[in-house]
């Protein structure tokens, strides 16, 4: 290759073609790898819906608290209304249990107060509260994919 040609473009035709060919090969190989990795992420989860019915409003009179075991959820009710707090510890996913002062996680000792605020242990965040709506049939529906601000209580008729 002549130095003249290099001065003009900075890269010779041969080098350009080499780089282009190898570049294309590497890019397509990476694309294949990405496709293989993408396969690990399922398009559909055959799991229970995060949105589920918990019963009519009158089954939650003021002052009651109930744990819905298979949904890992506490449903509580007071003068302010009905609210739902998760029972899944925000540290590493164990199930907390209710105590006199709030909630306790058995795995690594995280402690929460009655509103789900962290008061001890390694948990990095408070227990989230979930959205509650009322379906057309009058049943309450909890959506565990929608977190709401702490203190959001719902009144239903």
């Amino acid at each position, binding site marked *: 290759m002549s130095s003249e040609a290099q001065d003009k473009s900075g890269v010779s035709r041969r080098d350009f073609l080499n780089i282009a060919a190898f570049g294309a090969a590497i890019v397509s190989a990476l694309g294949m790898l990405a496709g293989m990795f993408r396969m*690990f992420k*399922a398009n559909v989860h055959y799991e229970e819906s995060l949105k589920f019915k918990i019963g009519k409003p009158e089954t939650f009179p003021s002052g009651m608290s109930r744990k819905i*075991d298979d949904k890992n959820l506490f449903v509580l009710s007071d003068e302010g209304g009905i609210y739902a707090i998760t029972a899944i510890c925000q540290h590493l996913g164990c199930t907390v249990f209710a105590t006199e002062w709030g909630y306790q996680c*058995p795995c690594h000792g995280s402690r929460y107060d009655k509103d789900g605020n962290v008061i001890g242990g*390694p948990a*990095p965040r408070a227990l989230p509260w979930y959205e509650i709506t009322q379906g057309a049939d009058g049943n309450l529906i909890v959506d565990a994919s929608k977190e709401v601000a702490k203190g959001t209580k719902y009144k239903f008729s």
Partner: protein
Amino acid sequence: MNVNQSGLDKFKENILSLGRSFTESYLRSGKPTSDKSRTAAIVNNFFLHVQGAKTHINTLRPTYTLGLGLISLFLLIITIVSGVLLMIYYNPSIENAYNSVKDINYVVFAGKLMRNIHKWGGEGMIITVLLHMARVFYTSSYKKGREFNWIVGIMLLILTFGINLSGYMLPWDQLSYWALLIVANIIQSPKELTDSLGITGLFDIGAFSKEIFLGGLNAGKEALTRVYLLHIMLLPLFLFIFLGVHFWRIRKDGGLTKPDIYEPKPWDSNLMSVPDKKGGIFPTNKTYGLMELAHGRTPAVDKDVENSVLSWPNLLVAELAVFVATLAGVVVYAFFIDAPLKELANPLIPENPAKAPWYFLGLQELLSYSAFMGGVGLPGIALLGLALIPYLDREQDYVGTWFSNRQGKLVALQALVVGTIVNIGLLVFTVNFGWFRSWWPKVPQLLITLINPGNIWVGFMIVWSLWVIKKTGSTRMGAIALFTMFVVSYVIFTMMGTLFRGPNWDFFWSTSQWPVH
């Protein structure tokens, strides 16, 4: 061959000499009765030729290698054989997994023994691989061209942990389920950091990784399939590849490390068989092999390669002895101690305390300070630090000598004592007084993630090692201090999590004090 022989006679003779001609065809160089044929027996054998035809006496000394790498390999082989046998009956579905393991335990012929052998063989590997790493470290065997092989060894350590952990999840009992859930949430724990920084909304790397691992949002059937895939295919595949590279590089480095100046001890003569030069190409004790000229400074004429003996039979007999001892040890242990199998997995009731397998209980103690630092941050730093040791300590002296020299022994002892005191002190403080959140409940999570007993301990190890480097003027001494403290804390944290943590991860002097629940 007699020309007058009939075809049938020849055929009869071939049948009669079948045994001999088959042996000859296998051993192409004849029976290993002379030095030449013994060499050929190693060099011409596919399975043996990863080893040199000759072995340095130092390699054969039990007090040098302690046989730890070899024991690890044999445990792996034992685990593979028993694992394949378990696969005959094991069924990787959440409906059948638990029952099939129960079948193996109580119905299948020798099933319980085989499961115990598999379990203890695998967990034994963790101990022997860690000890092997310590042996390689303290004899400076990560130097002089072996730097990369040290990293391959670290990969093998990680794979050993990974295979053990994924196997722990397969029986789908309470232990399996809650370990799986906790591991999935450790994988998710970068969320703790992204939440603190307020960037979870951009890309939730934690939730993404967890979903990839579980194949969904919950620890269910997809997760079991993936863990099974990891345990029997992906991780072993990588393990074999790295193991091949590991052995290949040892061979290319000229076998195991040895001291530069090696003085044979009287006892060493027990290891040697008398050289036998008949049948060689040279009539006298001359050795001009290229491989023997390549590494030395002067050609070795008229003498055997210094302080080395033929691998056949010297090395092979030693290996066989280690294999028999390993197999016997595992079988006896497995005969008397049963692998645990708890109740069927119940997603509604966590075990209390929900403990990880013992080799991760040190990490679980760190997890109880901060999920991200304990599960991802500190193990990452530890593994990175281990991997970088050969590159940060490039002194080439004392290779092949335990603890380098007198100073090395002192530094190790000092690190052992100081590390033990500081580490236990830190735990005593944490158990008695709690941490930031016990004092100021509103403390931001980021502060706990950054400052917790685990981080302080790792910081102390680093500062101490830097101080040792400054004081002694030797990076090797700093490495000895750091590695010793790493070993000390692995043991202490593991003991803490195993022996002294009970329900709700509270401190108890013994399990007899655990509250009844």
